[in-house]
C-alpha cells in the first residue's frame, strides 16, 4: 500500500510542477492545488499506513491493544487542507481580478513590476 501511495505522491508532484510551468495563470493555480494535495498525501503516507485500526482505546484499558493508525498526521492534514482551501479560494479571486484588470492570463505578459 505504501508503494502505491508513494507513486501517487510522486505523480501529483510531477503533474503539479508541470502545470506550474505552463504560461496560463489558471494552470499555475491548478498546479499549486496539485502541489498542496501532494504534500498532504505525503504527510498521510509518512505517518505509516495501518488498515482498519482506529486509534480507539477500549473501555477499561489505558492504551490501544494493537498497533493503530497514527492520528496526528490526519489532524495535521485536516488543518493543512483547510488552510490550502482558503488560500486557493483567495488565489482564484486574485487571478480573476487580475484577468479583469490586466486583460491577460499569460504569465509572460505580467512583466510591468519587474522592470
Amino acid at each position, binding site marked *: 500500500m505504501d508503494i502505491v501511495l508513494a507513486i501517487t505522491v510522486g505523480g501529483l508532484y510531477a503533474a503539479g510542477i508541470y502545470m506550474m510551468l505552463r504560461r496560463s495563470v489558471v494552470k499555475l493555480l491548478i498546479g499549486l492545488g496539485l*502541489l498542496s494535495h501532494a*504534500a498532504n498525501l505525503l504527510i498521510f503516507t509518512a505517518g*505509516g499506513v495501518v488498515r482498519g485500526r482506529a486509534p480507539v482505546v477500549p473501555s477499561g484499558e*489505558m*492504551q490501544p491493544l494493537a498497533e493503530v493508525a*497514527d492520528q496526528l498526521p490526519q489532524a495535521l492534514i485536516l488543518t493543512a487542507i483547510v488552510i490550502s482551501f482558503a488560500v486557493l479560494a483567495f488565489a482564484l479571486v486574485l*487571478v480573476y481580478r487580475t484577468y479583469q*484588470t490586466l486583460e491577460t492570463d499569460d504569465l509572460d505578459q505580467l512583466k*510591468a*513590476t519587474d522592470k
Partner: protein
Amino acid sequence: MNAQVAVIAPIALPLATMAILLFAWKSIATQKIIGLIGSTLLAVSAAILLCLVDRHEILVLQVGNWPAPFGITLVADRLSSIMVMLAGLMGFSVSVYSLASIDASRVSYGFYPLMQLLLMGVCGAFLTGDLFNLYVWFEVMLIASFVLLTLGGERGQLEGAIKYVTLNLISSAVFLAAIGVIYAATGTLNMADLALKLRSFPDEGIVSVLAMLFLIAFGTKAAVFPLFFWLPASYHTPPVAVSAIFAGLLTKVGVYSLIRAFTLLFVTDLEFTHFLLLLIAGMTMVTGVLGAMAQNEIRRILSFHIVSQIGYMLMGLALFTPLALAGSIFYIIHHIVVKTNLFLISGLVERRFDSGQLKDVGGLYRSAPMLATLFFLSAMSLAGVPPLSGFFAKLTLIQGGLEAEGYAIVAVALVVSLLTLFSMTKIWAEVFWKPAPEEAVTAAYGLDDSTSVRASLFGPILLLATITVGIGALAGPVMNVSIATAKQLLDQDAYIEAVLPDHHLTASRPGPIVPVAGNSNASEQRIEPQELRPRPRGVTSQ
C-alpha cells in the same frame, strides 16, 4: 504580569483587537483609534515579555497544560522576545503612520483588522516551539499579507501579488512536505524534542535532506539567493505603510526560522549545511546590491537592499561562532528599524511628488531639510557609516568573520557595504540634492498638510530615527544583549531543558507522560509511545 500571560499576550492582543475592529467595521475613525490602541498594547506587552525573558532566560507555555512533546508549546527565549519587541514597535510605528496615509476606501475594506492579523501571525511564528504551528502561523501571516498587498486592486498590485502569492505558496508546500518527512523520520514535531532526536539520528543523509527542504522553505520566505524574485516584484506596489511593515517584518520571519532551525535542529553536519548557508549568504549580498544599483525607483532600490541585507544576517548564522551570531542578531535589530524607516520616508517623498521615480523628484534638501536629515541618518546607518547602528552591526559580523577565518565572506561583506553606500548616495543625490524638476514644482502637493497629519507622518519616522541613533550610541548594551542571545542560541541543552523538563526520563526510558485532561494523577499513567504510534517506515528499514 504572570509569565505565562506574558508569553501568550503578543498573540492574544492582536487577535482581540482584530475581533473588536470587526465590530467597528462601519466607522473609519473608530477603526483607526482601536487599531492604534491595539498596536500600542502589543508593543507594551512585547516590552514586558522582553524584560521577563531578560530575568528568567526562557519562558515556556504549554498550551492547554498538555506537556511537550504532545501539546502545543510556546517558547519565549531571548531571540523570540527581541523579535516580538521589534514586531510590536514596527506595528506601532506603522499604525501611527497609516492614520494619515491610508485612504478611507482601504480602511473600509479592512486595512486595520488585516494589519492586526499580520502582527498576530508574525508574533505567533516568533513564539511557537513546534514546527507544524510554525507552518500555521506562517499561513496566518501570509493570508493577511496577500490581502494587504492586493487591497485597492491597482494594476501593479495585482501583478506583483500573482508572483508573491505563487512563490510563497510553493514555499509553503515545500515546508509542509518537509514537515511530513521529518515526522516520518523522527515521530515528533516539537522543536526541542526534534533537537534531541536529531542528535542521535542514525542516518546523516536523511538529516541533510531535511535540512535542505527547510532551507528552501524558509529561504524563499527570507528572500535569499536564488529564491528572492517575488520580493522586488511586489514590495513597491502597495501603499507605503503596507510595504514598510512587509519590509521590516516578513522576510525577517524567514530569517528567524532559518536561525532557529540551523542553531537548534540541524547542527550535526556543520561542514555541509553551514557552508552552503555561507555560500548563499555571499550570493544574496552580491545579487541584492547589484540589483539595487540597476534600479531607478526609490522603493525598488530599497526592496533590492532588503535582499542584500538578508545575506548579512545569514552570514553570522553560517559562520556559527558566538560573535558572528551576535553580529547577525545585532544586524536584524538594526535592519528592521532602519528599513521600515526608509520605506516610511520614501512614502513622504512619493506623497510630495506623486512618483517614486528618481527622475521625477528632487530638491527636497532645500524644501524639507528635516526629512532630508532623517533620511540621511537612516541611509548612512544602512550603509554602515559610524557611529550609527549599522556600523556596529557590520563591525561585529566582520570581527566574527575574521575570528572564524572566513576571509572570503568578509571581503564580500565589505565590498557590498561599499556598494550599498554608493546606492544610498544615489538616492540622496537624486531625491535631495539635485534641483527639483520643473513640472514637479507645480504638481507638488502634500505641503499644505495640517499639523495632525504631519505629526502622524513624521512622528514614527522621528521615533525610528531616534532608535537608530540610540542603538549606535548604546552599542555596548545592545551588543551585550546580542551576545547573550547568541550564547543562548548555541546552548541547545538549555532550550531542550526548558521545554522538556523531564527529558532525561524520556531519553533513558521511552515512557513520557500521557496527558489526560482534568485528571490530576495523570503523571502516573505511562505508556510506551512506540506501541501507540506505528514505527516510522523510513527508520526501521535502516
